[in-house]
């Protein structure tokens, strides 16, 4: 039987500012010989500081211990199994890090002359070719800084495409009710009107409703395949055909591409625009704010609208080329989040095409194994063969007053990062579990044991679940107070 570890970490919860005492120093700068650079003479007096900034004053060992202890409170894929649905928290091989740290990639500047950065440009050029091949698209822009930025880029491309074809009145974007929240948000942010279509009893897009809402006002249909229930939209080909017949474009949210590598390509399914989350599928440490990378791939008809510049290869030289006059323009300074792009390239090259296909197969196998075992104690509302993730429900445990969020917190006590909870919105008390391909069977078994043990606790001793976690430095925070009265900056006591 798996033993719940007892609390192993104690920490004073003081902020670094609260540890500060006037006169303490973390590093000693020379008292003399510091020469003013003279730069400040160019700064207008109105922009100059009049008082020194309020910075904490602590000794070097205090700083080291403060941040080391904070990092020990962290739970990440390097310390724990991290089955966060729809976020693909796979293990990130260290070789990608080593390559991203190579001086020729790390120490160059984007404004250097192109003839001194040929290696980097070649990498970006080849990465674009690899992504195009993996997704069945014509070309990619590597600029978008994350998934949602990629979606915004996609919406700009949709509008540019329709405008060019004299269809400016196409103002509606259709999303399934299982879609990622960013899909309708990106569409609305760019001024489209969002239309939601329900899922059918099989957890797929309802074609009947889709048929009724697709019309000459439709700009685009945004889909994720597999969808957020982890189910493959098996009617995607007729859906694509119908969308195109009505003059709309089909957009692919690549958050769930980890199920598809080397198996099925968005381009072949009929998608016109695709964004990828390189940090998910192509292995960059993420969570906690990035950086991410959300390249956008397009079909032949949309290449002319891609952001500028694109990378070209002419006469043995890699260059940056401004794309066509129809381009939507620049989306980000320089070339995007370059470190993530280098890691994605290293990942793709080290895995190879057979390795990528194997990764998707293993991800799907792991998810189905967990689904099968966990469904003995939890409801799985759309209990169909799943892809790389599945959605369970705590509805049964809810009868004893235990919520999905409580189960998530209790999993921390068992040494696991919680899965995604309360999403997708169409499943009550949702627990969205994505094991990824990088976990050995032993880890999956331990996770199953923990889930079954928690189900038993919910039945026999629900309080232990409702009050979890019991092993962390901080237990339950007051989420309501934090949202109602957010204090985002340190406020010194008066």
């Amino acid at each position, binding site marked *: 039987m798996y033993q719940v570890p007892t609390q192993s970490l104690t920490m004073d919860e003081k902020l670094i500012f609260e540890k500060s005492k006037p006169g303490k120093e973390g590093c000693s700068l020379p008292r003399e010989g510091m020469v003013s650079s003279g730069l400040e003479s160019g700064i207008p007096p109105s922009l100059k500081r009049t008082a020194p900034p309020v910075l904490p004053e602590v000794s070097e060992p205090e700083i080291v211990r403060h941040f080391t202890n904070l990092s020990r409170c962290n739970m990440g894929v390097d310390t724990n199994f991290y089955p966060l649905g729809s976020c693909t928290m796979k293990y990130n091989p260290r070789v990608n890090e080593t390559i991203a740290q190579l001086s020729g990639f790390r120490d160059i500047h984007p404004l250097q002359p192109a003839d001194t950065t040929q290696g980097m440009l070649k990498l970006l050029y080849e990465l674009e070719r690899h992504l195009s091949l993996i997704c069945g698209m014509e070309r990619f822009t590597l600029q978008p800084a994350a998934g949602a930025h990629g979606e915004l880029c996609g919406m700009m491309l949709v509008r540019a495409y329709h405008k060019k074809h004299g269809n400016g009145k196409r103002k509606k974007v259709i999303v399934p009710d299982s879609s990622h929240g960013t899909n309708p948000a990106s569409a609305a942010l760019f001024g489209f009107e969002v239309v939601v279509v329900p899922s059918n009893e099989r957890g797929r897009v309802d074609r009947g409703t889709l048929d009724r809402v697709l019309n000459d006002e439709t700009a685009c249909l945004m889909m994720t395949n597999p969808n957020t229930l982890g189910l493959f939209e098996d009617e995607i080909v007729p859906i694509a055909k119908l969308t195109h017949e009505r003059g709309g474009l089909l957009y692919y949210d690549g958050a769930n591409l980890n199920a598809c590598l080397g198996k099925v390509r968005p381009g072949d399914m009929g998608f016109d625009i695709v964004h990828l989350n390189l940090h998910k599928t192509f292995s960059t440490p993420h969570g906690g704010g990035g950086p991410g990378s959300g390249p956008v791939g397009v079909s032949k008809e949309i290449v002319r609208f891609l952001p500028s510049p694109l990378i070209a290869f002419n006469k043995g030289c890699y260059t940056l080329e401004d794309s066509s006059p129809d381009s939507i323009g620049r989306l980000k300074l320089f070339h995007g989040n370059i470190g993530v792009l280098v890691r994605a390239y290293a990942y793709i090259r080290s895995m190879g095409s057979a390795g990528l296909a194997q990764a998707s197969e293993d991800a799907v196998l792991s998810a189905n194994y967990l689904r099968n075992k966990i469904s003995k104690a939890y409801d799985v509302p759309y209990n169909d063969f799943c892809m790389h993730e599945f959605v369970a429900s705590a509805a049964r445990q809810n009868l004893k007053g235990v919520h999905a969020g409580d189960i998530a917190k209790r999993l921390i006590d068992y040494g696991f990062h919680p899965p995604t909870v*309360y999403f997708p*919105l169409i499943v009550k008390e949702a627990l969205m579990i994505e094991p990824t391909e990088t976990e050995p069977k032993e880890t999956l078994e331990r996770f199953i044991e923990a889930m079954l043990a928690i189900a038993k606790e919910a039945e026999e001793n629900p309080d232990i679940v409702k009050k979890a976690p019991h092993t962390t430095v901080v237990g339950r925070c007051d*989420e*309501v107070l934090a*949202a*109602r009265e957010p204090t985002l900056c340190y406020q010194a006591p008066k």
Partner: protein
Amino acid sequence: MDIPRDLKYTKTHEWIKRDGTRIRIGITEYAQKELSDVVFVELPKLGQDVLQGRAACVVESVKAASDIYSPLSGKVVAVNKDLELDPALVNKDPYGRGWIFDISLSKQEEINSLLDANQYDTLIHQKA
């Protein structure tokens, strides 16, 4: 579940109180319970035109951000500024101090499409 008899309702869980052509709008007891603790209400703008069934403002809880659909068409003539300071009024007193906005009704006939207390009661019990 509290469903005042003198109010009208929508399928999307707004309540409507009528005073001549002036209409007061809020969300129901059931809706606030489903949303859980409300942390922010994005009020509509004064003078803004709203259409029946279209999003007029947003209520944000710890669980979700939800559009509030205008039950009727008209012009916004008042908004509940108290919610800016204390959004929890929506939870504490959904039919009273937790009201969200008032409109002056522009299409009289739309009233007929609203649910009465009995119909709304049936609706939420089908859901549960």
